[in-house]
C-alpha cells in the first residue's frame, strides 16, 4: 500500500464571519505523516474536516493524488478518519465495526477485519461491544476501522486527547509504527506539542487559519520561524535584548538569530530554558527565586535585576541551588527568535 500526495490549495472558510481558515496551503508528500499543531481555534480541525469532506470550503481546492476532490461528498472520498470523541457504532462489536466499511464496499470482510484488529493489537477483544472496551481500546478499534478500507489518506483528529497520559504515549508510538508499516499518507491534528514532535515527519504549526511554519520536528523546535512558533512549541523565556547586526545581545551574551530581523534595537528574544545554564557564583548577578523538581530535569527561576529567567537544570545541579543563592546565568549560543519583529 503506497500513499498518495495531498495538496490543500488556498483553503478559506469562515463561520459566521469569523475566518477559521485564511488561505491555508499545504503540500503533503506520499506516505508522509504531517502533524497540524496549534492552539484551539487555529483552524487545524477545520482543515482536517474539509479534507475529509465533512465541512465545505468557501474557496480553495483539495487535491488527492492529483485529483480535485473539493466537491466530492465525504462518503466517496476514500479516507479513514479517527475522531477525538469515541465514534465506534455502539450496536456493533469491535469486529463488526471494522467490517462496516468493508461491507459497504462489498469486500470479503472477515479476514481483513480480523487482520486489522491484530495489527492494532486488539484481536482478543473482537467480540466485545464498545461499552465493554476502555477508551484506549476503543480508539485502537477506531484506527483499525479507518485503516481497514485501505484509505488513500488517514485522518486523525486529536485521537489521543480523551485518553490518560500513559495510554496516550503508548498509542501514539503505536500509531507511528502502524503508519510506517502501511505507508498511508496521514494528517494528525493535535494541540499537544510533545505529541506532534514525537510522531510527525513534519509539523505544521498553525495560527489564525494559516500555517506559521511547516518543517521537521527538530527544525520547528530548534529554529522556530517566528516568535509564535517558538512560544507555542516548547517553553520560552522572554528576555530583553539589543539587536546588533545579525545577532542579538541578551544578558551580555551574543546569540545568533533564526532569521535576520529589522527594527529594534530594543527587542525581546525568546530563549529556551534548556539553553540557559545556572551556575552558583558568589559574584553572580542573579539570585535564585524558586526551584521546581520535575523528575529527570528540574526548573529554576532566577532574577537578574528586573528580568526573570527560567532555566532547565539537572538534578545534581538543583541540589546546589537553594533559594536566594547567588548565581551566574550563562546562555548557550543557539539561534533564537525575536518577538514582534518582522523578518527582513
Amino acid at each position, binding site marked *: 500500500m503506497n500513499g498518495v500526495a495531498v495538496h490543500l490549495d488556498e483553503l478559506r472558510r469562515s463561520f459566521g464571519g469569523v475566518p477559521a481558515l485564511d488561505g491555508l496551503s499545504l503540500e503533503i508528500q506520499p506516505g508522509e505523516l504531517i502533524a497540524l499543531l496549534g492552539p484551539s481555534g487555529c483552524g487545524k480541525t477545520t482543515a482536517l474536516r474539509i479534507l475529509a469532506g465533512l465541512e465545505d470550503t468557501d474557496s480553495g481546492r483539495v487535491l488527492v493524488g492529483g485529483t480535485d476532490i473539493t466537491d466530492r461528498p465525504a462518503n*466517496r472520498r476514500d479516507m479513514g478518519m479517527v475522531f477525538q470523541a469515541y465514534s465506534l457504532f455502539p450496536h456493533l462489536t469491535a469486529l463488526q465495526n471494522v467490517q462496516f*466499511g468493508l461491507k459497504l464496499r462489498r469486500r470479503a470482510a472477515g479476514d481483513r477485519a480480523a487482520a486489522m484488529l491484530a495489527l492494532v493489537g486488539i484481536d482478543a477483544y473482537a467480540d466485545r461491544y464498545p461499552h465493554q472496551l476502555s477508551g484506549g481500546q476503543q480508539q485502537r478499534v477506531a484506527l483499525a476501522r479507518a485503516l481497514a478500507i485501505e484509505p488513500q489518506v488517514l485522518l486523525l483528529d486529536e485521537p489521543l486527547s480523551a485518553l490518560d497520559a500513559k495510554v496516550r504515549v503508548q498509542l501514539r508510538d503505536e500509531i507511528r509504527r502502524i503508519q510506517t508499516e502501511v505507508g498511508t499518507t496521514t494528517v494528525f491534528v493535535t494541540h499537544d506539542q510533545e505529541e506532534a514532535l514525537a510522531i510527525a515527519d513534519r509539523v505544521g504549526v498553525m495560527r489564525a487559519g494559516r500555517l506559521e511554519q511547516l518543517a521537521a520536528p527538530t527544525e520547528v523546535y530548534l529554529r522556530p520561524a517566528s516568535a509564535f512558533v517558538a512560544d507555542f512549541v516548547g517553553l520560552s523565556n522572554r528576555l530583553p535584548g539589543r539587536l546588533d547586526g545579525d545577532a542579538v545581545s541578551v544578558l551580555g551574551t551574543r546569540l545568533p538569530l533564526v532569521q535576520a530581523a529589522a527594527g529594534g534595537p530594543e527587542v525581546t528574544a525568546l530563549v529556551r530554558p534548556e539553553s540557559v545554564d545556572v551556575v552558583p557564583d558568589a559574584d553572580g548577578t542573579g539570585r535564585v527565586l524558586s526551584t521546581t523538581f520535575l523528575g529527570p530535569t528540574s526548573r529554576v527561576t532566577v532574577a537578574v535585576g528586573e528580568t526573570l529567567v527560567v532555566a532547565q537544570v539537572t538534578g545534581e545541579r538543583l541540589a546546589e541551588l537553594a533559594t536566594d543563592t547567588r548565581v551566574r546565568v550563562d546562555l548557550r549560543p543557539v539561534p533564537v527568535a525575536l518577538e514582534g519583529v518582522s523578518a527582513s
Partner: protein
Amino acid sequence: MAGLRARRARRQAVFRWTTLAVAGVAFLLPLGAMLEFTLRDGGGTWALLIDWPQLSETYPDLAEGIVASFGQAVLTALLMLVLLVPTAIWVRLRLPGLRPLVEFICLLPLTIPAIVLVVGLAPVYAWVNYFLGSSSLTLTFAYTILVLPYAYRAIDAGLSAIDVRTLAEAARGLGAGWFTVMARVVLPNIRSAVLSAAFLTVALVLGEYTIASLLNRTNLQVAIYLLGKSSATMSVAVSLAALLLAFVLLLLLSLVGDRRKASR
C-alpha cells in the same frame, strides 16, 4: 437521635403505604367493579368477546370499530415513524438551529384541545373525503398530529443518548450514504426510543374518542360509546379489555427501556 430518625422513617413508611393504598383503591376499585359487572351473566360476555366470528355477527358496529382502531393505530405509528425519525435525525445533523422550532411545532398539539383541533380539521377533512373517501382510516392523519408531542419527545430523547453527529460522520467517512447512515447506524442505536414512540402512539390511538366522534368516523371508543346505549355489559367488557391492552403496551415499553439500561 437514632430514635428520632427511626420514628421519621416509620412515619414515612406509613405515609407511603397510605398513599399507595388510596391510589390503588382509586384505580382498582372502578376496574374491579367493571369486572364484577361484566361477570354477572356468568362469563358469557367474555366468552363472546374472544369469539371473533360470533362477536362480529352479534355486534357488527363494535367489530367494525375494533378493526378500525387497530388499523388506525398501526397506520399512525408507521406514518409517525416515517415522518418523525428522519426529520429528528436530519435536524440534529444538519439543521441544529431549527431544533427549537421543530420541538415547538411538535409540542403544539398538546396545548390545543381536541375539540378546537376538530374545528380546524373539519375543512381539511372535507378535502380528505373528496380525495381519499370517508374511510375511518383517514383519521390516521389527525392522529399523527395528535401523537407528535409524545413521539417526538421519545425519539429526541433517544437521539440525545448517542453522539449522532460523530457516528454519522464516522459512517460517512467509511463510505456510507445518508440512507445507510440512518438505516444502519442511527436507527439501530435508537431502537428502544422508536419502540417507545410506537407503543405510545398505539396506546393513544386506541383510547381516542373526541376527534373520531366529531368527524363522524368510527373507532373502538366510538363503538363502545354507542354500544353502551344498547348493551351495557358488552361495552364495559370491551372498555376493560382496551384498558388492559394499553397497560400491557406500557408495561412492554418500560421493559424495553429497562433492558436497554441493563445492557449499557
